[in-house]
């Protein structure tokens, strides 16, 4: 495939840089900073080559690089991007040099280790975005964890021990349960495909039993929901943000949180559509709670970093809602909102870093009236704040508008078997989050920049220096560009997003049963009722307990139990399938009856 060298290059440069930096003598801090910056910029340039080879009209994965990694296990080193991930990769490679640039003199101890940790972190993040292999994804996912832990723990604030351990334990618990689900998928798919593989595209051809999908989705969703973070799993985030150094906060909010949403889009939803259908109402409601709760709690904070941390809870709620609305508006909006959030929240944390370096406090009440002292900074920061609050013509507006729109119209387009409770109400409630967001962000801006200059220490604050300007300007330009010209980005995302919803709709209509490849068991949604009846008869025949399955109201999209010609033949086929499937079938169906499966 043309351009297949780009992604390995993008992944290799930062890790190469980390090794390089670690080999330098310890005292040469300027050299470490310079090398870190050079390697991240080189990565950015390399990642721009993606655009050269990327065909925006194609929906599938592009720039695919595939080589065998662990032969006995079927694990491949397989990377590729599509319209969903390509901009997230660019966001990562753009934020990294800016972060290192802004760090400047703020980090003085262990500069070498700091730079190396940042570079390893970049490899982990990029690897998780471009991986097309479940094993590689898990490895990259975990590789991100340790550098972030060290960033918070070594270069963090007062309560850094507590915050770093909390961050690790939260993330680990989620990701290990995901690992169990990965094992399950891996072993089941191995028996269906006739050989073990962790290749995502091949795993996606396997339909798992209904019950297994529900549990596996739950395991994946826990890992991703902690990362997003969804209410009530968000409590690690404010601690981590407050204690992390500026660079850590920028990367944490700008990139790491996106893995939750991205994981849902790339892994959890395509692999377990039935599971997604079962958990979607819960996740959608939790997202809306998160949007409103995050906004309200943010308003109550005196610590600026905590305020921005809670605003992330609120903003990422929009992204989660948009994804689970399952419309192309919602999903495109969600990806767009992630990009916008990466730029604006990155900018907010950079701004806080600028203030903190000058005043060494993050308390809102310590500031006030510094517009006059730092006019350039105030102007740029205002654009960032407005972008975050969702002012039209800036980036935040497009994403939030699209996710709300997507949720609002979700009721009309959802595939059979996938429901959201009162999508219009969810959309309306989410919209209040936009208003609340404007309130707390402007309130924060006002407390810092307006009012009387009554603190003596605020009297002589120097404005931005050249280095700080260099970090802010690209972000502000990005915020403007995304807001004014959202079309090109949405255009590139569209084929991949459409493919996502199309595939999802196709997969969810396929009847469940023992693990099989999609398309090999011929049963269309209208026959689902028949399949259920047949399974229940089988359960009764096996004496399985708990068959309180209601037969009324089944019948898929038709809404009625219809018996088209050939139903008898289908019944036979089902029975034959059961015979072949053996006890796995009975376990799956008995379980699905037991859990009170919602009848479509």
């Amino acid at each position, binding site marked *: 495939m043309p351009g297949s060298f780009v992604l390995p290059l993008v992944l290799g440069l930062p890790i190469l840089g980390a090794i390089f930096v670690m080999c330098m003598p*310890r005292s040469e801090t300027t050299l470490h900073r310079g090398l870190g910056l050079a390697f991240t910029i080189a990565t950015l340039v390399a990642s721009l080559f993606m655009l050269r080879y990327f065909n925006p009209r194609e929906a599938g994965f592009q720039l695919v690089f595939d080589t*065998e*990694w*662990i*032969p*006995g*296990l079927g694990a491949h080193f397989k990377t590729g991007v599509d319209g969903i991930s390509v901009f997230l990769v660019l966001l990562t490679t753009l934020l990294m040099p800016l972060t290192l640039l802004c760090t400047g003199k703020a980090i003085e101890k*262990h500069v070498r*280790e700091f730079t190396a940790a940042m570079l390893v972190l970049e490899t982990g993040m990029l690897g998780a975005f471009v991986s097309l292999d479940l094993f590689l994804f*898990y*490895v990259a996912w*975990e*590789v991100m*964890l*340790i550098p972030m*832990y*060290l960033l918070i*723990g*070594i270069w963090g604030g007062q309560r*850094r*021990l507590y915050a*770093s*351990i909390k961050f*690790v*334990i939260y993330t*680990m*618990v989620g990701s*290990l*349960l995901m*690992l*169990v689900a990965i*094992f*399950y998928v*891996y*072993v089941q798919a191995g028996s269906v495909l006739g050989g073990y593989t962790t290749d995502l595209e091949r795993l996606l051809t396997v339909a798992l039993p209904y019950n297994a999908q529900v549990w596996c989705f739950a395991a994946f969703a826990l890992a991703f929901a902690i990362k997003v973070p969804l209410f009530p799993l968000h409590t690690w985030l404010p601690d981590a943000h407050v204690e992390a150094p500026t660079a850590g906060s920028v990367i944490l909010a700008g990139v790491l949180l996106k893995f939750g949403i991205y994981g849902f889009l790339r892994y959890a939803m395509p692999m377990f559509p039935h599971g997604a259908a079962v958990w979607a109402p819960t996740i959608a409601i939790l997202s809306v709670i998160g949007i409103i709760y995050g906004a309200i709690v943010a308003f109550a904070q005196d610590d600026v970093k905590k305020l921005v941390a809670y605003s992330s809870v609120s903003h990422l709620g929009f992204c989660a809602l948009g994804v689970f609305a399952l419309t192309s508006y919602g999903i495109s909006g969600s990806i767009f909102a992630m990009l916008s959030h990466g730029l604006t929240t990155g900018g907010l944390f950079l701004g806080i870093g600028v203030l903190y370096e000058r005043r060494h406090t993050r308390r809102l009440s310590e500031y006030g009236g510094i517009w006059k002292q730092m006019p350039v900074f105030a102007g740029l920061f205002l654009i960032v704040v407005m972008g975050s609050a969702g002012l039209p013509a800036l980036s935040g507006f497009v994403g939030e508008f699209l996710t709300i729109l997507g949720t609002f119209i979700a009721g009309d387009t959802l595939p059979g078997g996938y429901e959201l409770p009162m999508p219009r109400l969810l959309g309306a409630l989410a919209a209040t989050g936009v208003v609340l967001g404007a309130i707390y962000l402007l309130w924060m801006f006002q407390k810092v920049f307006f009012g009387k200059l009554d603190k003596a220490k605020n009297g002589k604050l120097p404005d931005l220096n050249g280095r700080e300007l260099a970090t802010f300007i690209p972000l502000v330009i990005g915020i403007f560009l995304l807001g004014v010209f959202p079309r090109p980005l949405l255009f590139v995302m569209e084929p991949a997003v459409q493919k996502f919803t199309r595939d999802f709709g196709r997969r969810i209509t396929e009847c469940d049963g023992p693990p099989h490849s999609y398309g090999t068991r011929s049963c269309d949604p209208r026959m689902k009722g028949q399949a259920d009846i047949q399974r229940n008869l089988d359960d009764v025949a096996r004496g399985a307990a708990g068959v309180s399955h209601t037969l009324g109201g089944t019948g898929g999209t038709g809404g009625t139990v219809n018996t088209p010609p050939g139903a008898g033949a289908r019944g036979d086929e089902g029975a034959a399938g059961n015979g072949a499937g053996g*006890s*796995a079938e009975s*376990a799956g169906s008995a379980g699905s009856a037991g859990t009170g499966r919602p009848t479509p």
Partner: protein
Amino acid sequence: MSFNPADLGYLVPYLILAATGMLLVLAEAFYHGEDRTALATLTAAGAFASAIASVVLFRQLEGNTKISLLGDMLVADRTGYVLSALFAVTTGLAALSSPAHQREHDWQIGEYYGVMLLSASGMVMLAHAANLVTVFLGIENMSIGVYVMCAMRRRSRRGNEAAMKYFLIGAFATGFLMYGIALIYGAGGTTKIAQLATVLSQTKNPGLVVAGGFLLVIAFGFKVAAVPFHMWAPDAYEGAPTPVTAFMAAAVKAAAVAAMIRVFGTALGGDVVPFGTLGWASPLVVIAAITITVGNITAVRQDNIKRMLAYSSISHAGVLLVGVSALGLGAPSANTSLVYYLIAYSFTTMGAFAIVAYVGSRNRERLLVDDWAGLGAQHPAIALGMTILLLSFGGIPPTGGFFAKFYIFKAAMEVYDGQLLWLVVVGVINSAISIYYYLRIVTAMYFREATQPFAPTRSGGLLFVIVVCPLLVLELGIMPGWWLRLVG
């Protein structure tokens, strides 16, 4: 029982270890001077030579060939040679890390090295055991040596206590082992492992098999320090000199698991014992689950690094038992995964204890977690190595420990009908718990300031182990393919 001189060719790894061991005991008698580095070097040379012999013999054998030796007492196969090479290398690493510790803590006894090699020869016997009698002999040969090594630091009261405890409990376990073998023999009429599987499935005395199987589970439970037979381990690990602790935690445990692979995988494998749907694995899976959990939760409460690593090694024994259970239940990749786990675990353990030995010195052994505060700032390379090893213990990629755990759990998932799924969930949740205490050490090393400068025990051998082990552990995690071809 016939003796065929040609068989000795297959036993070269064993013979090298035994001969070098006896030579060393003799050499000590004529040795002058305090420092035993020369003896240690000779030990390591013998051990590595034995490992090379194993590799050569390994390459001569075809995939699944099993060559019966000395009238079915021993068997030469690829698994056996991989494991005997591993035991020999571990022994060599333990020998290299010993002289500096002996010098710093005043227990320069030369017999130590001879005993170590003789004990290692017992391990090699276990790796090749084809008869319950050789299993017994191997275990005794190995254990008696380790009891002596444990007691080498005569002036340390803790050391004496540790050795006494270890010896008494070990003798107790031997009784179980002997009794179990006797009952199995009573039911099957043979002690040949390869024949037992078929003979036992037709036995007229299933009660004897059940009782014998239980006794064997208990005996091996003692040897690998599985809960509730683990009480000796923390005291013994803490009291023994650090290189001996490493040897016990890595090689002795691995050898016991090697014997379990033979006994439970082959002799009792298949549909032998009417224990319920899981066969003899039903007590074993319960023990595995309890072992992982108790080991981890107790480790969280430890302030002494050696005790913490002792409890961590108990929980690793639990993971190994998961693999043994999967092996008995017919999971195809269980054998490979167990061998891989033993390799990754052995190198991780040897490296971690070598660093523990390095950090302490004559005046201050620095065994508490608090004593390690600030190591990252003063000795960044050592702290980085320890971090890699701890991450490997905790099963975080890209380390060998992660891949080993992944592979064991994968094998457990292969068991028919997902019967061990719950065990995998238990194991995985415990991994999250274990991260907490492993990171406590990382936290101390990097996030806190040192109270006084470190005065580490420097020696070439120790540094060699400290450099090689983390690199190998990383290599095992990033490029497992080569190792898998080797052990699969």
